[in-house]
């Protein structure tokens, strides 16, 4: 009663607003110096590059002095030499050395990118030749809708497909996710929210486990599950092996994400009287949600491509098997491996198409992770911010309704002299303006 009267008497109602603090990433200090470049410096590198490519082409394809394999190497060495000479025309030795190393570092970055795109491009191209082959024979989905059960090694590409491997991969990764996600997030919560000496031991072990050789995980499940329990290859054992490999990746990235949740949010929750579990459920996990999604998706992308553990536990079959608990169940990477081991060109083509399918799956997952996880913990997208503002306005209405009801009640019961409080309308205006 007194509290309400106090608020109505208060001269200056403070602006009530809760703002998630903006946090810059812990690691990157603001950069205050940026080295610029003059026009002369900017032109030197492209010029040297053009000259060296021209020289490589001249010596290789045109004059035939060197074999095509040497062209990139000769061009590169010539580029470095030419670049150094050009720079040293105007600059002193220290600058020349700086420019030389910068060129080398650029090339290192370039080589890494080139290699990655060569790998992806090559496999997708080889796989594409199979996919497009299918459409020449009329619209024929068989590659994705049939298994290899009745397909002989010499049958054309229009017969047989990888349905059995697709089903196997989906079931195995599904079971693995079902086990990994709760266990992984619970462990990450343990490492972050409870902590202590024991948690440090667990964290060290998890970190060591991220480098567990995949074949060793397969051997472990083979020894622990197949030899002791099931006595046959099956999909469930494969998903257990994938779980053993996915868990540490999942825990590590979830741990990193949760560490970025601002401590004052947690403390605000505790100060409002929430218990530890409420804070985790209502503050920490929602704040870290996008990061956790990224962690899950990236772990899936890793788990889906695991081959060695599946080889040791799932067994090889060319038949469709929906039951992961009984009988061998092949998955996409394993099917690609088996196809490629065959000497038949058609089989090898199927192998490349299978690998391309797998790679596309991984790429889609990766893009999804990037789209979802482009933001830091606690920072919201425009849509999320709007949704949260709407929810907060809704809360405000409820609070105001309660306030009005209570004050009316008080006005009726206690003292008729108390005027209707002016507070709510001011609250409303401040709420709408924000």
């Amino acid at each position, binding site marked *: 009663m007194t509290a309400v009267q106090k608020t109505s008497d208060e001269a200056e109602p403070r602006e009530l607003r809760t703002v998630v603090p903006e946090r810059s990433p812990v690691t990157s200090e603001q950069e205050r110096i940026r080295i610029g470049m003059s026009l002369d410096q900017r032109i030197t590198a492209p010029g040297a590059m053009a000259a060296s490519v021209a020289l490589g082409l001249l010596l290789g394809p045109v004059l035939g002095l060197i074999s095509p394999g040497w062209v990139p190497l000769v061009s590169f060495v010539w580029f470095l030499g030419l670049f150094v000479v050009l720079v040293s025309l105007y600059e002193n030795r220290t600058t020349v050395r700086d420019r030389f190393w910068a060129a080398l570092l650029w090339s290192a970055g370039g080589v890494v990118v080139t290699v990655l795109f060569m790998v992806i491009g090559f496999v997708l191209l080889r796989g594409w030749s199979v996919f497009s082959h299918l459409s020449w024979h009329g619209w024929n989905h068989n590659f994705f809708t049939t298994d290899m059960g009745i397909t002989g090694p010499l049958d054309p590409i229009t017969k047989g497909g990888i349905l059995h491997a697709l089903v196997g991969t989906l079931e195995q990764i599904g079971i693995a996710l079902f086990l990994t996600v709760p266990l992984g997030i619970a462990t990450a919560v343990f490492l972050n929210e409870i902590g202590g000496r024991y948690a440090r031991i667990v964290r060290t072990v998890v970190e060591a486990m991220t480098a567990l050789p995949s074949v060793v995980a397969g051997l472990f499940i083979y020894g622990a599950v197949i030899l002791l329990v099931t006595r046959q290859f099956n999909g469930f054992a494969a998903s257990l092996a994938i779980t053993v490999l996915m868990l540490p990746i999942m825990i590590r990235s979830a741990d990193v994400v949760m560490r970025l949740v601002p401590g004052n949010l947690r403390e605000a929750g505790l100060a409002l009287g929430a218990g530890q579990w409420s804070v985790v459920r209502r503050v920490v996990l929602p704040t870290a949600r996008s990061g956790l999604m990224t962690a899950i998706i990236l772990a899936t992308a890793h788990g889906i491509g695991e*081959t060695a553990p599946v080889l040791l536990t799932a067994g090889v079959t060319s038949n469709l098997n929906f039951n992961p608990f009984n009988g061998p169940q092949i998955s996409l990477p394993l099917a690609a491996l088996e196809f490629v081991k065959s000497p038949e060109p058609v089989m090898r083509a199927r192998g490349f198409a299978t690998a391309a399918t797998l790679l596309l799956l991984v790429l889609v997952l990766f893009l999804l992770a990037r789209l979802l996880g482009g933001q830091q913990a606690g920072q919201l997208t425009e849509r999320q911010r709007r949704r949260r503002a709407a929810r907060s306005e809704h809360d405000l209405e409820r609070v105001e309704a309660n306030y009005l009801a209570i004050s009316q009640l008080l006005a009726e019961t206690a003292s008729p002299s108390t005027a209707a409080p002016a507070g709510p309308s001011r609250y409303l205006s401040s709420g709408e303006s924000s």
Partner: protein
Amino acid sequence: MTTLTSDLDPGDFGEPRALTTRYSLTDRIFRGTSRSAGTFVLLVMVLVGGFLTAHAVRAISSVGVVKFVTTQEWSPETNHFGIAAVLTFTVLIAMVALTVAVPLSLGGALFITEIAPPRLKKIMTSVIDLMAAVPSVVYGLWGLSYLQNHVVGLSYWISTYFGWIPLFKVDGAEPGNPLPNTALYTSSTFIAGLIVGMMIIPIQTSMMVESFSRAPQGEREGAYALGATRWGVIRSVVLPFGKGGIIGGVMLGLGRALGETIAIYLIISPVFSVSFHVLQNGSNSVAAMIALRYGEANSFAMSALMAAGLALFLLTMAINFTASMIISRSRSGAESEV
């Protein structure tokens, strides 16, 4: 000047109140659950080692540890097997991989942290992450049907001109022959090492990027103020600061390289006698041997494979723990870990 003295007895402030936290039932359940999740993960790890040891005992005890480590052949059927050859090849492949991967990832990491403009920096980070997510079977396929054909020429060239170094010697090579027998140079340690090198670039790069980006801005600016060029800053501030990260990253990469299976399995043709000729056809690795042999194995042969797996497990774990210790002791890692 007067000195103010407190009337209060200092003893009144002496003992802080003992704070006790009493958790509600929900919180106790929550703490118990998440603690048991952590325990479970720890248990899985212990179980991996435990099961491997339990299964390996039979094989190792039948030949003895010394013979197991020093024998080159692998024929459990005749009770004559050991990991000398496979382990040597595993280490050789890892060394080739490191030779390729360390300069590239060091350069890539410096490029990302020091040189790339902000937008390119983001793209490069994504590229490195994507590289880590590409399945190993895809790398293996690429190595088998693309890289191998293109690298054989390089192998031939190296062995022709540097064949006098034992490492690059190829038995049966005919340097004068205008049509060299390229089959001699396929499926070699060198090619397997190249592919594995590509696969460990991402882990090494991301470790190094993490430690380089922690180099204090003040020290960088200090170096610039003293007239250093960008390369000068890299050499005198960033590299010394990130030394722990470099060593740790390289060792993590080494651990990955030792454990890699499928790419090596696809490329090599297995041999079981130690040879240091990295360019020559025929190689092996512990992991690839396990993947090749598990199918035909009876229970004793399986136990022998478990023993090989145990050796690999212990080796990678030792390397990993050393790596994480180096990283956390170094200056750049000091703030990163709790």
